[in-house]
């Protein structure tokens, strides 16, 4: 399994998202090194199809496929929690489903 964690430092949500990701990986007994990449420019965002920060992909598949289709952007990404509320980080459920 390969896990990519892409972030833009202009959005403050990445430490929380990374912590949640590490927690889910640990809970699932998955021992791997997450590939972390910081996105600095809009050109990089285009090249990486980066729709906002953070973006997490498991074996190349975005943990939130719907959000992955948004245009490349150096901005905070909007996730939706299971109850519909907006969040700057994916839900634990989204991560668990992506990693299972």
């Amino acid at each position: 399994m390969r896990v990519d964690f892409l972030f833009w430092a202009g959005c403050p949500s990445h430490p929380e998202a990374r912590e949640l990701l590490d927690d889910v990986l640990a809970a699932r007994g998955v021992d791997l090194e997450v590939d972390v990449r910081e996105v600095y420019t809009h050109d990089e965002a285009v090249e990486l199809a980066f729709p906002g920060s953070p973006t997490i992909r498991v074996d190349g598949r975005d943990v939130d496929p719907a959000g992955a289709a948004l245009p490349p952007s150096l901005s905070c990404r909007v996730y939706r929690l299971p109850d519909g509320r907006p969040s700057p980080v994916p839900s634990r459920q989204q991560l668990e489903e992506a990693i299972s």
Partner: protein
Amino acid sequence: MSAIANAPTFDLPGIDGHSHSLDEYDDAPVLVLVQSCNHCPYVLAWEGRINDLQREYRDRGVRIVAINSNDAVAYPGDSFDAMVEHAREAGYEFDYLHDESQDVARTLGSSRTPEAFVYDADRRLVYHGLVDDNREQESVTRHYLRDAIEAALAGETPNVADTEPVGCSLKWRS
């Protein structure tokens, strides 16, 4: 407190099709400016609480004014048309103004969305920063903005006058 001590003058277009200036709010005993935008998840998480505060304090004359200063060229989701649409969908009960030149944001010294500035009747800054201490409403323990509004209405200084805003970075024009 890092923000400037007095409310900035402004005259900005609002989503209601009218221009709104600082003078227009002269009768308000408390004026709250909120640096905001359309697409930021932190704004989306807090905007309902901001709306609730406007609803709750309207009868006491408090006015909340949200200002979007983000670069709409690089971030089309923050265009004026998108502001109109977003405010309609979210049911904003406060004025929502477009600071296309970003002059107001520069004067305020804003850096994040959302970022609140509370001014008393003399338009002196009495509070700057967070709405409250948690973007998850059920986990909130400190109601900074509400407390600041109450203090300003009472002619007092809030116990907490400055907090570090948490949110999206303001999108400056390059």
